[in-house]
């Protein structure tokens, strides 16, 4: 069973940036780029560091700890030191609210 969870207002995320969203004892990262929205797991797959403290450049999120990179659209790990992909979640917008679909 999946469900759509209201995560934040779209304006809570600055353009080309990331914020942290916690729900049900799990943490997620929400991204905005040119009015497209994306959601991934919140922790880096290298050493469980919050990606929301990292840096967004285009469609890449860079981990603040050791600069591991992921494509936040697909979750694909983009080279050293990360090797495990990041989980991604579908998003939708309704009346300026951002929803993410969680299992």
């Amino acid at each position: 069973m999946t469900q759509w969870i209201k995560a934040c207002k779209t304006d809570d995320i600055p353009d080309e940036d990331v914020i942290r969203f916690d729900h049900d004892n799990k943490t997620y990262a929400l991204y905005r780029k040119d009015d497209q929205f994306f959601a991934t797991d919140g922790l880096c797959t290298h050493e469980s560091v919050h990606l929301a403290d990292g840096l967004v450049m285009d469609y890449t999120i860079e981990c603040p700890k050791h600069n591991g990179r992921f494509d936040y659209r697909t979750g694909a790990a983009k080279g050293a030191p990360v090797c495990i992909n990041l989980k991604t979640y579908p998003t939708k917008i309704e009346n300026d609210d951002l929803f993410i679909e969680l299992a």
Partner: protein
Amino acid sequence: MRIVIIGAGECGVRASLALREQGFDGAIDLVNGEAHIPYERPPLSKPSADGVALKPIGGTDRLLEDRIALHSDSIALSIDRDAREVALSNHERLPYDKLLIATGARPRPLVLNGNDVPQARYLRSYDDAKALYDVISPDFRLTILGGGFIGLEIAAEARKYGAIVTLIESAPRILGRAVPASLAAKIEARHRMAGVTFHIGKAIASVSAARMITLEDGTEIPSDVVLAGIGSLPNIELAQKAELTIGNGIAVNGMLQTSDPAIYAAGDCCSFPHPLYDNKHIRIESWRAAQEQGDHAAKAMLGSTDAYQAVPWFWSDQYDLTLQIAGLAMDATEEIERKIDEQASILFHLAADGRLLAASGLGIGNSIARDIRFAEMLIAKRAKPDKTFLADPAFKLKSLLSSAV
């Protein structure tokens, strides 16, 4: 084409993976002087709550999947440059067309009055770490020689276990080589708060067989383990024997190529010219540099002629504090402080002409990470950022990037 890589540390492994990422389909031999699967070193001095773990570089099966022939527990003994062959301790001979030396560094041994000190222990390998953490316990007396990164990280870990930790530094302050004095003072204060005893500016007179350390001023420090963290030496002997050019490490050019065009060297063992710092030959011991140089050497062996110019970057974790340093501050004439919050600040190191050379940040968790990353990009662009912007924590450094030339 056959490529042989000597040393399966961060650099050698990353080079082997990068060769495949670049589409190289030939044979890759990776000579692993250790008996374990290649692993990450930084966690050895920052273990998780469950103790020290072997964290494989790039994941457990990656080398196998990438068809990299790992020769474990075998040491490369010599390089025959005419025959283009490497001789291993298990009597195998590996022919090469291109060779990468990524032999890393080893701890500088403690010498007192011209003699080695057999009581001293070191931390470089998983086995070293395992042996150390197996004995650390409450009321265990750990004496650390050297206030460098390794010694300080171990001090922080050992305090978590309740050990009695004493740190001796012969220089006038800790972290004298790499970290600005004001940040080093904050780090020292954090350690004192955690209960570490310091003897700074004190030289050691002797270490008894029962590990009683006597300082030159007569202070006696009884110890269960004496751990020396007094720097490291590049592993150059193989290159030396093969008569490659040496100079503070195995000397390489901008493509990380040694004085033999078929042989490259990268990581902790090499010294290379850095275009951002007047092409001075430098040797750096940094995990990210080992990765980047492994990557660079792989591309160079496949024909790229680009010069390596990544901004040096280093981090250290002690307690809840993270230190990150980008760039090299050696030629800086001015320091600008940016106070991010109560605990976190960044020092920007500027050259006389205003160019940003380096940035050193210290704070809780990842509080300084983003700004250090922007600083790194500004350093790479040789930017001369406005000092008032650097000092103002409300000013977004990101906006300087587009304007920097």
